[in-house]
């Protein structure tokens, strides 16, 4: 398992674990990781198996990935943690919090929906020609406004940055990630089992996981905190990094 190098202490900590989405890696969390680290909170921004600098074999289901992370936590004697997940990462957070509720203090699901069905044509593209899938995911992953830029982080062109990150992912990763999202079942029942504090951060202009498709999840959690970012698409940490951070601070400071 690879995790963000800013974290000094792992053993016996109660970290916030940041879990990235399809084809991504830990670098999507650099800003909040730096914040919580400065505040002396233990943080782990991980690369899922086969992603970024994690050399382990990629996994193709949300439950396998959850088990993989729990094994990692066991290895370092981490009994409890909080989870922040984006897109596919949000489903992993849900799976972890529902399967071992006693081990999770809080979860933040960013850019999420259930079911997270993936169009067959997109899955096929991801399998046979990942570049097409990358183009579609990037295009759908931003609001129309953000496709024209206006990045809060000065000088960075958002859509191409996202493409580049996905292009650097290993062969077959995007297909496996999308398949894992698409085949994730029982989300609403799992939501009912979650004992942790729950937050959902949603973009009003999200084309991949539209706001309306998170409503069933919201209805099945116990008093979730729902934060909607007006105008944002699915790439909330890129499109609205400061608002995402403020909402995370709100969750973890309470």
């Amino acid at each position, binding site marked *: 398992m690879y995790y963000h190098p800013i974290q000094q202490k792992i053993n016996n900590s109660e970290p916030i674990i940041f879990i990235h989405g399809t084809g991504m890696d830990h670098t999507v969390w650099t800003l909040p990781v*730096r914040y919580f680290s400065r505040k002396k909170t233990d943080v782990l921004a991980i690369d899922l198996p086969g992603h970024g600098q994690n050399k382990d074999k990629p996994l193709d289901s949300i439950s396998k990935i959850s088990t993989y992370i729990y094994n990692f936590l066991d290895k370092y004697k981490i009994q409890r943690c909080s989870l922040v997940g984006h897109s596919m990462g949000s489903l992993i957070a849900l799976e972890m919090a529902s399967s071992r509720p006693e081990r999770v203090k809080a979860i933040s699901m960013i850019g999420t929906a259930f079911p997270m069905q993936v169009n067959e044509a997109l899955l096929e593209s991801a399998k046979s020609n990942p570049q097409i899938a990358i183009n579609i995911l990037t295009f759908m992953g931003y609001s129309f406004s953000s496709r024209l830029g206006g990045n809060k982080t*000065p000088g960075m062109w958002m859509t191409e940055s996202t493409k*580049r990150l996905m292009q650097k992912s290993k062969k077959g990763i995007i297909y496996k990630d999308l398949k894992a999202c698409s085949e994730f079942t029982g989300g609403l029942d799992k939501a009912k089992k979650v004992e942790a504090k729950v937050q959902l951060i949603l973009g009003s202009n999200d084309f991949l996981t539209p706001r309306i498709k998170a409503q069933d999840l919201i209805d099945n959690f116990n008093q979730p905190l729902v934060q909607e970012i007006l105008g944002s698409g699915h790439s909330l940490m890129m499109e609205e990094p400061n608002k995402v951070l403020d909402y995370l601070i709100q969750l973890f400071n309470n």
Partner: protein
Amino acid sequence: MKKPKDLNLETLSLHAGNKPDSDFGSRATPIYQTSSFVFQDSETAAGIFNNERAGHTYSRITNPTNAVLEERISSLEGGIGAISTASGQAALFLAITTILGKGSHIVASKSLYGGSHNLLEYTLPRFGITSSFVDFRKPKNIKSAIQKNTGLIFGETLGNPGLDVMNIEMVSNIAHQNKVPLLVDSTFTTPYLMKPFDYGADLIFHSATKFLSGHGVVIGGLLVDSGNFEWSSNKKFKTLNEPYNGFHNMKFVEEFGPAAFINRARKEGARDFGACMSPHTAFLILQGLETLSLRMEKHISNTREIVSFLNEHKDVKSVSYPELENHPDNKLAQEILPRGCGAVFTFEIEGGLESGKKFIESLNIFSHLANVGDAKSLVIHPASTTHHRMNTLALKNAGISESTVRLSIGIEDINDLKEDLDEALKQANR
């Protein structure tokens, strides 16, 4: 499933990076003519400084007007991000010093703009960075010039002023086989004529003074990162993959992944070297970019007519333009520059140096000055001006003789330009 449709260059030239401002709805990009930015509170200030929050602190490092320009050029080139600089030279210096230091080596094209040649040949060696200049038409020469400490390969899309067309795909293949990035000066071509990242370049810089701004009213540079080069685990690039004391031991490749280079360039180079672009300059370049495609179309159509006109003129010995069949890069130019080979070219005048001087002084519409890429037509004698610090061999390598005249063709009426040239040629040989 509906296929995604990216916006085209003509649309991005007008819109990329800019949103109507949230306070007053200004459609044009506002000029944030301010040195610094008020922080909401101490915590926000600390967050921006520590790279936890997006935002601006000080205009030497970032500025909202410049940020629009940086996004726009990134979008046009297909890059992940950019930095605006005080000049094209500042962009070149920033690119080099972000990754190289004492003991590093550059393999550069022998056909470079005089200012770039000066930097590499005379100035950088004082800081321990040396360069070898080779003919980029010969892959063997590039390969044999690469040393253990070579950390960069550098050339121009169209060499200045000889218009050698760089075979970017071939050069980038050699660079990448040797785990070295390729930096390309794309000033003469602009993204309208060619996008070097599509052919394998890793970094691009522009003198935005030229075609991008297009009106000869500003000095500015832009450095663009493709985000493609694999910096991690390459021991040559310690600035990116080892802890940086100057930013709390930040390891750029681990915190920013593909954006390691551009982040280091901003967090170190923009901060410490200080060669920043003024917001007003950024605004003027943005204005220029809005009409880039229209101007380039006219620049190219005028250039093609004038190249043809001079090529048949009795007082002209030869014309060097890649679209001419006798140019050594004619075939390559047809492949990678189908929209045109730029609007700058050279010709040899009959009668040598004295005729050249007389010709330049007899022109009325063409302005005699040291610039290119203006909407107005320009002329200069490279051997005695822009390239005068080069020795005879270096001049020859760059394709410059004493009778070489360089023209930068503007967007005036084509017949007026032809008449001006014709009359001056008559005067020169009278």
